[in-house]
């Protein structure tokens, strides 16, 4: 236990800024999850593993001498096709089925990816060094790596691009129509199969961007995927489906929570506290709804 965080305001500011920048990244991943959840009614447990895979793409570019920031462009392109492949092989068989089936199937994919990445890239914790240096604030008391600022900026750019794309483009309209009512969309000539594939691909691409940014800013490891899934799930249930500002806000809130949990409880409880927070949020919402004799649907 370490309560330094309350005695020194600088540490508080540090934690808040770190959490904010981290939270924007979480929000990007959560946006992908909200998209596929809303459109296809699927909860993808492999979300976090897609993120990590995207991170490894950027890391390998770094190993071969290309600046890892380019991973932000390359990784989503590769991940888009990975996403389409996963959709064609597995997801299209579970779309209309019981939700638990999709959870279990994606859990299987998650285990598969974890292990394949472990074989391919080794079990070491790695990071791609961007060499961006740091920014000092408040008389050098608050240290912000420029890579974090860069990653938050890129996340915002990608999120805005996606929102505009969903609003303006033909595919975006088709996706939104399918989310509202898949059957009606089908009757009106939308190829829902194609829409689903594209949605899953876009989600994977978003994960790829986030992964590339994570490999620059933090570290990646084959087994680190599940916490990202849980985080994005948590963000989505707090914000609600299709509530984009809500996703951004709750993402940042989660980031700040995590940084404080890290300072106060210690790093070894960081992931545990995230998972516990998920349980607490669900329990809170369950009791709040049960007063009106309703339940989370």
């Amino acid at each position, binding site marked *: 236990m370490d309560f330094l965080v309350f005695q020194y305001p600088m540490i508080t500011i540090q934690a808040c800024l770190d959490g904010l920048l981290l939270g924007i990244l979480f929000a990007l991943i959560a946006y992908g999850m909200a998209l596929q959840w809303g459109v296809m009614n699927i909860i993808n447990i492999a979300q976090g593993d897609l993120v990590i895979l995207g991170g490894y793409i950027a890391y390998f570019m770094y190993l071969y001498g290309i600046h890892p920031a380019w991973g932000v462009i390359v990784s989503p392109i590769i991940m888009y096709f990975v996403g389409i492949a996963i959709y064609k092989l597995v997801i299209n068989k579970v779309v209309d089925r019981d939700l638990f089936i999709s959870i279990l199937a994606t859990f299987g994919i998650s285990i598969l990816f974890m292990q394949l990445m472990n074989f391919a890239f080794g079990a070491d914790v790695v990071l791609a060094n961007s060499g961006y240096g740091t920014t000092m604030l408040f008389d050098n008391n608050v240290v912000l790596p420029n890579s974090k600022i860069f990653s938050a900026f890129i996340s915002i750019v990608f999120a805005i691009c996606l929102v505009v794309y969903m609003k303006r483009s033909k595919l975006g309209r088709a996706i939104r129509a399918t989310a509202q009512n898949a059957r009606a969309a089908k009757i009106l000539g939308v190829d829902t199969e194609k829409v689903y594939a594209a949605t899953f691909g876009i989600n994977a691409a978003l994960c790829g961007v986030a992964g590339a940014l994570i490999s620059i800013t933090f570290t990646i490891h084959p087994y680190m995927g599940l916490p990202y899934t849980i985080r994005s799930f948590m963000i989505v249930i707090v914000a609600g489906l299709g509530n984009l500002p809500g996703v951004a806000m709750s993402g940042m809130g989660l980031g700040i929570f995590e940084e404080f949990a890290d300072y106060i409880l210690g790093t*070894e409880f960081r992931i545990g506290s995230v998972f516990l927070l998920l349980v607490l949020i669900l329990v809170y919402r369950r009791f709040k709804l049960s007063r009106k004799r309703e339940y989370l649907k």
Partner: protein
Amino acid sequence: MNKNSWILYIGILVFGLVAPFIFPAFKVQLSILCVLIVLATTWNIQGGEMGYNTFGNILFYGLGMYLCASVQVGMFFPLAEWTESGGEKTFVHTPSQFFQGMAAGLLVAAVVPTIVAGLIGYAILGLRGHYFAICTLGLGVAAGEISGGIEIIGAGQGFTTPPFPNIGGLEARGEFFYFLSFGALVLTFIAVRAIYTTRFRLILNAIRDNEDKAEAMGIETMKYKITGWMISAFFCGLAGGIMGGLVGYIDSTDVAFDGREMGVFMVLMAILGGKGTLWGPIIGATLFHFFKEGFWTFFLGWQYVALGVLIVVIVIYFPEGLMGWLREKYPERFGEVVDEADRKAQVELK
């Protein structure tokens, strides 16, 4: 119960009792199989009968494992020093201490998770469907992460359970743990079979089929859901305690709260055999154990890849499991009356 099923039960019981002497090399495997069957059967109470698909039974399993070992050590020696010194090097259990500790430990390992299940169940059994699934997944992982940070039970470096006392060597150890786990299996089977003949099972099935309607019919669903969950927790805790002693070493995320292995295994085994049946999880667990050992032996290193593929294949192509398939093929055997004309008409439609 008719004569045939009595013969079947007695046959299985006799086989179970003599199995370690027929296959002396596979005692540990057989003990693990018993534990797996217990886990699959108890998962089936939630996932199959009640329709609450949980990833969280691993919580009780891990809890039971830690509690059993802690009680077994803590009754005679200071726990903190035990874990710090890596266990057996400084303190040695005498045989009577070991068995007393094991008995007390198993009792605690069964009772405390039951109480925990009651408390947690009250909080989270109001969630439905996928929210419940993800919530329990979170609980299991959180328990693993948190127990990995607690010093007194070994934190990250693990907890060595008391070694079997030096009487009879490896043979005696294998037999002791085999009969312990077989006993747990028999106990579980009798309990679950007894439950499945009562109204309780019908209520659980009503909850699965339509919870709102069950509530409207005047069933206090919450009470029954919690009871079902507590029954599961009791046997999961017991199984965990036995498994802890059998493995001999407890690690927070790799052995006790191993959501990636045991937590998924129990779901898979129940689904493979057919959920919502008495025999499904047992058959599923047996098949799965054979598959798994094959994978683990022949694809060493690739076992998780094989596991991931297996999950996807089972879930996509056999969501009803073996018993579901048999039921579709031979509905008469399951007590369903099928009109012959009706069946023919269906075939023609296809």
